[in-house]
């Protein structure tokens, strides 16, 4: 029965087709794109099928090759995995459609098959991370996702090579720390299966080796998800990558990192350990606060739209981590909803940045004059996404921030509450700066270069780029309007059981 094989198909389809795309690309570049779409459609259908099955029947256990856990590799899919996997596949699918025209213009023709192959490999890695239930398997898939991201970034413009190399160094340190952590856990428990380790660990909670394992695992993941102060690789990498690549990895990679963090600190290690024995959530909470403020302030200072969005990503990771650190029902709901919101919103914003690059050939915010008249549809989508970032109802951003705020009030963390409100104001500053330059402009300031031209022709990007932009923009509104439904059917089951009773 094919339905039972969905957990494997979701990973295997993009993996196999990434090789096919590479070989087909030698003969004819035109054949690559349909294969990419086929692979991602298969993954998308499987992800929807999995989410449906999980909602209907509960957690899915899939044993690869028929080996029973804890010896074999097991894919465990509960509400949390299925939710994140669906977000990743939707964004990947949308970006793949968009990438056709965008990369044709941005990168040399002979690299297009490689880019598509790497794109599929990246999706393979990300989806693998979300479905796997094995600690070492997660490391390998994390590296598959990272390798393809290094190479994808290196394809970009001038400066991308050095950004990519720095990302390699930081990413490898992160992955190796994770591996050391896995080694310590293996020595102490003799198991690599997450569920199994989760059951064996409580007896060892006061061991120093487990403390080290926990520290290494979290630092490794935190580097991969670019939480302040380990975010240094992110802005350069996201700025110089090709637009379609930024639009794929910015919404997905760091969010998958957040997922891994939740998985490790609340499922492999139990909340009792992460909150009380080793007060990790307190440390993460303070880092998140600094990330939110510093990321936003850096974003305000940027001229380059993509760089601004990259720093905004650093700030948004702060929001998600703050929700995790609050460790109560409302906080975690906010964090998970914010993962969804961030994926759609950052996706939309990076797609818009790519569209502006496509038509105007530049990304300097201060040269965005008359952009609303030239590209009205693109810029309206930008405004919707900016509203979501700021948190104006009925966008999804409003609801995720509302939950975070409720969580912070529940936990009596008044500094968190204050930081949330301040960072909202900072978000307003940098997003409305863009809108101001694109829409309202002091006409006399530009009088010296001829003033306002008489008529500005509408010059929109092609439909295959506009449709993805609008899909994400409408997605932001729909997920906002139906956020109550999303919380009641998926997210509340994705939160560890012990948080549901208390608050």
């Amino acid at each position: 029965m094919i339905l039972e094989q969905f957990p494997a198909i979701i990973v295997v389809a993009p993996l196999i087709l990434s090789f096919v795309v590479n070989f087909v690309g030698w003969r004819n570049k035109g054949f690559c794109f349909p294969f990419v779409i086929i692979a991602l459609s298969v993954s998308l259908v499987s992800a929807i099928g999995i989410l449906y099955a999980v909602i209907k029947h509960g957690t899915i256990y899939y044993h690869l090759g028929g080996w029973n856990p804890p010896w074999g590799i097991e894919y465990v899919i509960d509400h949390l995995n299925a939710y994140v996997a669906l977000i990743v596949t939707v964004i990947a699918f949308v970006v793949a459609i968009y990438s056709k025209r965008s990369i044709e213009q941005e990168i040399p023709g002979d690299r297009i098959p490689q880019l598509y192959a790497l794109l599929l490999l990246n999706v393979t890695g990300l989806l693998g991370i979300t479905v796997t239930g094995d600690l070492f398997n997660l490391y390998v898939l994390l590296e598959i996702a990272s390798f393809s991201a290094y190479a994808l970034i290196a394809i970009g413009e001038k400066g991308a090579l050095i950004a990519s190399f720095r990302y390699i160094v930081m990413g490898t340190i992160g992955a190796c720390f994770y591996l050391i952590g896995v080694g310590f856990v293996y020595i102490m428990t003799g198991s690599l299966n997450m569920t199994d380790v989760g059951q064996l660990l409580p007896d060892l909670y006061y061991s120093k080796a487990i403390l080290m394992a926990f520290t290494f695992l979290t630092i490794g993941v935190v580097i991969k998800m670019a939480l302040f102060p380990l975010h240094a690789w992110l802005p350069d990498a996201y700025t110089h990558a090709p637009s379609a690549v930024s639009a794929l990895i910015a919404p997905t990679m760091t969010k998958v990192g957040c997922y891994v963090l939740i998985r490790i600190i609340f499922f492999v290690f139990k909340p009792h350990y992460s909150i009380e024995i080793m007060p990790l959530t307190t440390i993460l909470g303070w880092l998140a606060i600094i990330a939110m403020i510093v990321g936003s302030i850096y974003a305000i200072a940027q001229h380059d739209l993509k760089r601004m969005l990259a720093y905004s990503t650093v700030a948004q990771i702060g929001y998600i981590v703050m929700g995790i650190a609050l460790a109560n029902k409302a906080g975690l709901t906010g964090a998970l909803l914010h993962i969804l919101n961030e994926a759609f919103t950052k996706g939309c914003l990076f797609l818009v940045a790519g569209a502006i690059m496509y038509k105007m050939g530049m990304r300097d915010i201060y040269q965005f004059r008359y952009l609303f008249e030239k590209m009205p549809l693109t810029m309206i989508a930008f405004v919707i996404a900016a509203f979501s970032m700021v948190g104006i109802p009925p966008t999804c951003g409003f609801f995720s921030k509302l939950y975070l705020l409720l969580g912070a009030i529940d936990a009596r963390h008044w500094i968190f509450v204050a930081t949330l409100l301040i960072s909202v104001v900072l978000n307003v500053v940098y997003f409305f700066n863009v809108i101001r330059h694109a829409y309202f402009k002091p006409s006399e300031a530009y009088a010296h270069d001829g003033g306002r031209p008489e008529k500005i022709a509408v010059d929109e990007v092609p439909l295959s780029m506009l449709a993805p932009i609008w899909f994400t923009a409408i997605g932001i509104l729909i997920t906002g309007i139906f956020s109550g439904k999303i919380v009641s059917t998926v997210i509340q089951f994705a939160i560890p059981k012990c948080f549901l009773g208390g608050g």
Partner: protein
Amino acid sequence: MLEIIVSKYNYWIFVFLLIIGLYSMMTKNNLMKKLIGMNIFQWAIILYFISIGAKRGGSVPIIPGGHGHGVQKIVVHATGYVNPLPHVLMLTAIVVGVATTGIALAILVRIYNSYGTLEEDEIMKELGK
């Protein structure tokens, strides 16, 4: 003190190599040296995994008589065998390490072709930062 060092010497070697790798990744200006540091860092972890699986006097973990139907039950003394799992994991990790090195070297070649140098500060100067 000396006893702790000698009895757990594999861990000390691991930590020592790890710190050498981390140090050169953080402080070296030449990108190639950074890459070498990264490799030392990775191989340190691989050595560590292999050392935890090894046993003095341990034999290859193959059960004599094979497996399949009709094989009579053989008593297996786990203490007599090395632990194969960390070694198998490291096969994968070695592949991962080689792939990292490969990508990093390819990028270094392209950096050298476009900037004519591998010194980080000179490249930054060229990029105007």
